[in-house]
């Protein structure tokens, strides 16, 4: 495709995407949160509160202009800690999907294109992994691997690739007999070329939408794990841990629970709106 064509196509996509207010809201929320999280030490009012910090004169302060979200049981600013808490969620989502998506896509391509025993092996493996609720599996794995976040994320990725293998496998099976694939075969294209240059681009929209949706899902999962006290090492802030800690001081100090919970919700909603917008524009049926 020529560059000018590509730009025109992109402009069309953007036009359709921008017609939907929810999609735009999703995009803005997601981009803002990612930027703010990266710049957390510079944009939060009390960056030192993210670590070990105690200020007993300011414990349990309700929301005010000095502490937008109030303070917690040792006087730390909850707004600051919520922003830093996004780090845990986003690192988790980025790493898990960063490993799982490429792995699942390649295995799905290979199993769908070659078929035979490779297909049986990979698909039976996904059957087994998918027989377990992801949350239960994640809890089991991160309980076993302890507070080591790195191991937990690798383990989650080892579960997560199966969804992408399934998705891509299904699409490859339906695409591999298309005329343009046959044409490429007749022209002597290599198997690698057919898999990655002919078939993969047609799977890309579905993969993109699923990755966006899954980012929200992994973030929900990471909030659930940290809610149970798994995979996170205090005093490092994680939104789920903050919700759990705050819940002990309900209902009097409601802000300790409500604001971190809202922080989780905003990000999850943003990603889901973004995914919905992408789904409409790219015409993906997931």
């Amino acid at each position, binding site marked *: 495709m020529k560059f000018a064509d590509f730009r025109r196509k992109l402009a069309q996509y953007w036009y359709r995407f921008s017609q939907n207010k929810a999609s735009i809201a999703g995009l803005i929320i997601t981009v803002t949160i990612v930027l703010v999280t990266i710049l957390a030490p510079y944009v939060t009012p009390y960056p030192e509160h993210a670590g070990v910090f105690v200020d007993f004169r300011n414990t349990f302060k309700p929301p005010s202009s000095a502490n937008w979200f109030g303070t917690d049981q040792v006087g730390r600013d909850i707004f600051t800690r919520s922003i830093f808490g996004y780090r845990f969620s986003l690192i988790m989502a980025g790493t898990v999907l960063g490993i799982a998506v490429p792995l699942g896509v390649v295995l799905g391509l290979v199993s769908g294109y070659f078929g035979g025993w490779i297909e049986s092996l990979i698909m039976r493996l996904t059957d087994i992994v*998918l*027989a377990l609720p992801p949350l239960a599996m994640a*809890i089991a794995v991160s309980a076993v691997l302890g507070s080591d976040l790195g191991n937990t994320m690798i383990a989650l990725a080892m579960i997560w690739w199966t969804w992408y293998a399934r998705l891509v496998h299904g699409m490859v099976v339906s695409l591999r007999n298309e005329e343009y694939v046959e044409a490429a075969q007749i022209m002597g294209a290599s198997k690698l070329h057919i898999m990655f240059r002919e078939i993969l681009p047609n799977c890309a929209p579905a993969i993109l939408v699923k990755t966006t949706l899954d980012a929200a899902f992994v973030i929900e999962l990471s909030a659930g794990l940290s809610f149970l006290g798994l995979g996170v090492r205090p005093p490092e802030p994680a939104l789920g841990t903050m919700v759990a800690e705050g819940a002990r001081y309900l209902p009097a100090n409601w802000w300790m629970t409500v604001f971190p919970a809202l922080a989780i919700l905003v990000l999850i909603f943003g990603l889901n709106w973004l995914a919905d917008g992408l789904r409409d524009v790219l015409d993906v049926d997931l």
Partner: protein
Amino acid sequence: MQYILFLLRRAAHSILVLLGLSIIIFIISRVMPGDPARMALGPYATQEQVAALRQEMGLDLPLWTQYVRYMSNLVQGQFGKSLISERDVRLDLAHHLPATLELIMMTMFWVVVIGIPLGALSAVKKDTAFDNLTRGFSFTAVVIPGFLVGIGFQLLFGYWLDWFPITGRLSPGTVVTQKITGLYLIDALILRDWHLFFDALKHILLPSLALSMAGIGQVIRITRSSMLEIETQDHVQVVRSYGVPNLLVTFKYILKPAFIPTLNILGLLSASLLGNAFLVESVFSWPGVAKYGVNAMLQKDINGLVGVVLLIGLGFLLANLIVDMIIGLLDPRIRLKGEAE
């Protein structure tokens, strides 16, 4: 006959999956860093005590022998002794299972009685204000994590409005005079103990509703979309043109076939339900399997962990088998497909 073959094939598939699952769990439980025997005994145990427990648990044997022992125990339904409660894991699980079963059954009840009617109404009243509202609700219900819904409910209905209790299965002072099924609601009905029934109902309401939100959202979505799809098909148009009353068309020719995708979703839903139950049970201090599982996991109780994970896997597979069974009965296309292959 074909139906039985279809079921047998599904069952065989489930057993294979369960076998694979047990292997994965074995691998996970044996790569656990830290010594499970040391964990169970605590920091003050002597080296000899730890070594003795290791030997008792078979942790010093080669991995292959350990696997053979593990599998032969599993086949006999033995999970071993919980390292924390020091009881047979089976007893522990049996003790905690009724609470979880009750919660999940109640949740499924809400999903069906709230989700299907809302989805059907939404399809009938397509593009009205009601439809838009329901779709907005279903999106929200799917997206919000269950444990946050739970905390929100506690805050709103428990602390602020003070309508419902927020923890446990019963109020202090309420006793179950006779345990029959262990599901308090059903026991109370059998015993005709209305005080018990309403107390149990009051306690289960918030956790089961919190747990059901995601399912309700999904069922609304799938019921609505499959009804709208079926409505455009030829046979429905024909029935309509014959002058069959609208209500009959909606119920018999549109809603009934729309149950099939909904049932499929209910089967898949049981997975996320069991997973979310972990969090919701811990929010509401619900004394179920998930709570037991979290404790086993936090305290590195391998035997308890293996038991819980296998039980969840089994529950998921059973749920799907039941769904397949019902779908096979409802839909001859699926039942007979095996013949064509």
